């Protein structure tokens, strides 16, 4: 635990100093902002996965945050930071409603409902143009007057929140609760773990972080519309990153974000991939689930075990086993 925390402090220190090196390059600064935001998405998705639940609504909450800030600014002249706070509250309320109904039931209901949720938000955004601006969407002036260093630290704050959640769940009693639930819900309940409450709490916290990420992104790029805000690709990214890097860890989602998001930057402008770059995410998910269940982190620990010629560290694949 100590070693991991020291490593994270070093990472945070380097990340905090990064603008010194990048501030002169607007493109790299933009990428740094977006990276932090996606790290927050990936970390928070992973926390939900630790309870064995598949959330496909991360993109939807992201869009919800974007629209909350945009609508707040358009109708109440709400400044971006105030909008961010309001978005957090809105995200929490919606997540309690969605999670409260579906997390009492088998995991598949939750997964299905979260997938449908994004489509419904998109439909609503399209069908009430008086409020949402319809297909055209809503624009607002840039965050901090377009100062990408300032916005970098705001994104960093959201990232720290996600990291705190991820490490907090790992190094407190919550770790045993979520692991027990993931392994076998019935047994967890018998042992006295408040199953539904734990699942709802992790989902709501994670959803709030996703909402905040969207609330940051909207004024950062100054525009939102139904197509962009509720893009399924963002939900896909939020889960492809942790799966590739290493699910159920804090390092994994961060490494996964850096590697895959950089690759995406390249593919997006390279034919024949372009818009179809997501094929890579699909392939990564399928291959990782089949052949690399703990992602890069799992691979690394297996390699290290082999190099030090110690007996291979057994990585338990937790499951009920049918």
């Amino acid at each position, binding site marked *: 635990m100590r070693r991991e925390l020291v490593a994270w402090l070093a990472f945070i220190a380097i990340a905090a100093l990064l603008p010194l090196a990048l501030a002169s390059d607007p493109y790299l600064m933009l990428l740094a902002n977006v990276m932090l935001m996606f790290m927050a998405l990936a970390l928070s998705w992973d926390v939900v*996965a630790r309870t*064995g*639940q*598949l959330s*496909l609504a991360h993109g939807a909450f992201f869009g919800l945050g974007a629209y909350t800030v945009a609508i707040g600014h358009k109708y109440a002249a709400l400044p971006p930071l105030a909008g961010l706070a309001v978005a957090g509250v809105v995200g929490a309320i919606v997540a309690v409603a969605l999670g409260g*109904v*579906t997390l*009492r*039931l*088998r*995991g*598949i*209901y939750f*997964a*299905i*409902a979260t*997938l*449908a*949720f994004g*489509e*419904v938000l998109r*439909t*609503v955004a*399209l*069908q*009430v143009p008086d409020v949402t601006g319809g297909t055209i969407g809503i624009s607002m002036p840039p965050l901090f007057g377009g100062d990408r260093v300032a916005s970098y630290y705001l994104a960093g704050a959201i990232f720290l929140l996600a990291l705190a959640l991820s490490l907090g769940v790992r190094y407190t009693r919550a770790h045993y609760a979520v692991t027990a639930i*993931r392994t076998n819900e019935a047994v967890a309940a018998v042992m006295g773990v408040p199953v539904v409450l734990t699942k709802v709490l992790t989902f709501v916290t994670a959803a709030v972080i996703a909402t905040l990420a969207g609330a940051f992104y909207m004024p950062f790029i100054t525009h939102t519309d139904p197509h962009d805000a509720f893009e*399924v690709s963002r939900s*896909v990214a939020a*889960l*492809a990153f942790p*799966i590739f890097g290493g699910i159920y860890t804090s390092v994994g989602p961060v490494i996964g974000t850096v590697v895959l998001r950089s690759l995406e930057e390249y593919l997006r402008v390279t034919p*024949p*991939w372009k*818009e*179809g*770059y*997501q*094929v890579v*995410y*699909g*392939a*990564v*998910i*399928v291959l990782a*689930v*089949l052949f690399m*269940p703990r992602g890069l982190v799992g691979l690394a620990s297996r390699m290290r075990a082999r190099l030090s010629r110690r007996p291979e560290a057994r990585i338990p*694949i*937790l*499951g*009920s*086993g*049918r």
Partner: protein
Amino acid sequence: MEALPQTLFFGVLRSGLYALTALGLAISLGVIGVVNFAHGEFVMLGAYIGFWVYLLLSGPLDLGPAVSPLVIALGIPLSAGALFVLGRGVFRFTLRPLLSRPELDQMLLTFGMAILLQNLVSIVLSPQAQDASLGWRFELLPLPGGAISVTYARISAFAVSMALVAATYVLLARTRLGKQMRAVAQNRLGAMVVGIPVDQVYEVAFGLSLALAAAAGVTLVFQTQVSPFLGLSTILKAFSIVVLAGLGNLFGVVWASLLLGVSEQVISQYVPDGSALRDGLFFLLIFVVLLARPGGLGRAR
């Protein structure tokens, strides 16, 4: 504004495609216990096979008015057959090894597969939606009375869907294979004990599920554009029907489809600005059913 009989009739027609798609999904969910998030993408693949059959028949062969019936007569067996084989392969090499792993892994696999397929098709073919200008899409069926008018395409798509659904029910209810599937669905361990080759039954069930998806895809060619991204809206409605019917209740799928199809049609006709409500109806249904009767509306079989 349409008259009520016309609205109800269109609602019923709409439910045919829903039933066919949802039945395939319900089989993989009920028999194998796997949520196939890629089911909509397999509908999409089936639709492309149907579309290619159309291109072949109308382009190089130039069969004129015979194209429409031939797309059904050739397209459905071809695409269903292809996806049956594909389904068995997909099950054997990807899903089978994951059956002993947590549900999360299985869902991630099929979701990843969905993303993979839709983007692969959009890269290899084209992200653009394509249209088959089949004669039957516009020709009206001469009906006496004049209260109802309908195109050949809609009525034949409905008839084919219902015939396939009925055939699947006969398979499930009357044949040895169907009996085995229902046994495995009820109790995997019990089925094993009495000597049913469970893995083999799973594999065939998954193939069947994909074959139904493919057939649904071909009927889609008659009704709308074919696009790599048609899977998502398809599967969301299918999910809501399966939830409505109750997981594992294969025979409730038809009634649930009828409920969704007719209410969508009625809402879009009689509720002012109802298109938002119509497109969101499936989610409302999921939400209300899960809140009130998580086991589904029908009695569990």
